[in-house]
């Protein structure tokens, strides 16, 4: 998109600031922790063993369970035997979605490869399951964290007050759904979240993590690390989760620049933790949520009311910036349309019409149909169906949904395949990806993180890549690449 760069440079020169200080460009990233289990083995075998088997090819190539791939993403084995995949930096929700879908495929490949080896020692029925969900069968939870690069002018206080009400009510269309013995929930995570904003993630689970690692110029950006979200299987839900959150952040950033009363002042919640538990148990979106004491006039609002405030502000923002929308959010009109459709359908009690793209609605429709078919259905069967929906390795359920046109896909199989090896072309990830690809090809010894690429052998050399928006080779990067031959 060559003309975008010109626009941004103009804006930067006019005000004497940096590129991107005055536009709405953003870096998106999704970190997904996967759960692992194994069934059908003739001898005992636990998830930890299987996770290590999955990572054997990674270890033999990278000498570590923590590595970066040629598509610019990070692949590693996290605490508690969670395989984790963090997408490379993307400029659009669609690119982030493609990277995330590539992650599913990469995990599936690792799992099926491990399964093949496992069957030699543990019997032909051994099956490795890799769950892209957020809760295991005994209530341990793990995350799908979204990262948004946000201008430094947006304070944590602002995020807490203005973004949290959106994040708490967003599950109406972004919730992955969960069967529990006590009833259906539209989110996986509601029962496991505590404070709205905090610096820890393992001891207490906040909704937004404040660990400030922008992986970019820290004077200009912060990285907003959103923990509250569910892992989605639906591509449209993943895309919508990122696209709508982006639009809300744009409105918040614009308000920071212009001043005045925030359009979201009337949405601040008294108790976000209690609110999301209410939202999670209410498929009508109409249960009252208590507002903060200093919100004028109103004492409570429903999830639908709150979402409508955010949707209206996003619609105004898109209308005001119509000429720049291709740069700010491609397909913004479709995002707004789907968003409005979702709220209208839920308001009309017609959540079932969302089953083609909202994960929780797809699941609930399926569970209800299964219960109609088998009135005495074993609850374990429902729990199994719920997990099966998220199994990217051996799960047949989600594939059946797409095969029967019950679940929409936004990406072609080719796009996903390409994203497994190709980084987004318009971010720093292009440089990292090319570095990793060349290092693997030449057998160099190397290491990487989000802002560095380091060569250890044949010679030691390092380059820093501090601008996540830039795919332009730097002299340092060229030098490192040249040293590999």
């Amino acid at each position, binding site marked *: 998109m060559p003309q975008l760069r010109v626009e941004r440079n103009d804006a930067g020169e006019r005000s004497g600031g940096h590129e991107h200080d005055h536009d709405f460009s953003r870096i998106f990233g999704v970190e997904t922790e996967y759960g692992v289990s194994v069934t059908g083995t003739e001898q005992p075998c636990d998830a930890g063993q299987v996770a290590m088997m999955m990572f054997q090819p990674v270890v033999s190539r990278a000498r570590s369970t923590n590595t970066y791939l040629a598509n610019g993403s990070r692949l590693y084995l996290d605490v508690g035997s*969670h395989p984790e995949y963090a997408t490379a930096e993307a400029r659009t929700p669609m690119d982030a979605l493609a990277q995330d879908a590539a992650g599913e495929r990469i995990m599936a490949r690792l799992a099926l490869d491990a399964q093949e080896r496992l069957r030699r020692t543990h019997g032909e029925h051994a099956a490795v399951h890799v769950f892209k969900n957020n809760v295991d069968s005994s209530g341990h939870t793990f995350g799908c964290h979204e990262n948004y690069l946000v201008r430094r002018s947006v304070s944590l206080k602002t995020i807490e007050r203005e973004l949290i009400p959106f994040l708490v009510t967003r599950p109406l269309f972004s919730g992955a759904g969960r069967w529990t013995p006590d009833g259906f929930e539209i989110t996986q995570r509601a029962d496991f979240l505590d404070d709205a904003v905090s610096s820890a993630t393992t001891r207490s689970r906040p909704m937004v993590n404040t660990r400030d690692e922008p992986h970019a110029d820290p004077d200009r950006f912060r990285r907003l690390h959103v923990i509250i979200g569910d892992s989605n299987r639906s591509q449209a839900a993943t895309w919508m989760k990122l696209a709508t959150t982006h639009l809300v952040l744009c409105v918040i950033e614009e308000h920071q620049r212009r001043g005045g009363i925030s359009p979201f002042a009337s949405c601040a919640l008294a108790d976000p933790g209690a609110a999301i538990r209410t939202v999670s148990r209410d498929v009508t979106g109409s249960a009252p949520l208590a507002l903060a004491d200093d919100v004028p006039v109103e004492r409570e609002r429903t999830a639908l009311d709150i979402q409508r405030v955010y949707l209206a502000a996003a619609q105004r923002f898109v209308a005001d910036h119509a000429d720049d929308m291709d740069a700010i959010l491609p397909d913004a009109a479709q995002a707004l349309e789907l968003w409005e459709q979702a709220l209208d359908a839920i308001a009309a009690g017609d959540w079932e019409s969302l089953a*083609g*793209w909202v994960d929780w609605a797809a699941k609930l429709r399926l569970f209800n149909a299964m219960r109609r078919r088998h009135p005495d259905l074993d609850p374990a069967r429902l729990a199994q169906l719920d997990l099966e929906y998220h199994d990217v390795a051996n799960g047949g359920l989600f594939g059946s949904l797409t095969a029967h046109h019950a679940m929409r896909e936004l*990406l072609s199989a080719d796009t996903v395949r390409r994203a497994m090896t190709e980084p987004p072309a318009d971010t720093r990830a292009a440089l990292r990806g090319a570095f990793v690809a060349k290092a693997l090809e030449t057998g160099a010894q190397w290491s990487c993180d989000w802002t560095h690429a380091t060569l250890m052998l044949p010679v030691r050399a390092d380059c820093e890549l501090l601008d996540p928006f830039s795919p332009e080779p730097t002299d340092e990067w060229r030098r490192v690449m040249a040293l590999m031959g």
Partner: protein
Amino acid sequence: MPQQREQGQTNGAEETRQEETARVAPQTDAQVDDLDALLDDIESTLETNAEEYVNRFVQKGGE
């Protein structure tokens, strides 16, 4: 939404276009073509021991 039925079957030209631009289809409310066939399909692939399938999945926690 009368076009729902047709959306299930995209023709070749449409598919190519989708691939090139990766644009979002304005209506993503796909309509299942036959719920009973879908349920048959799902039931035929489920592991028989639901209890084992569910209980084997115990993770140590992460994040």
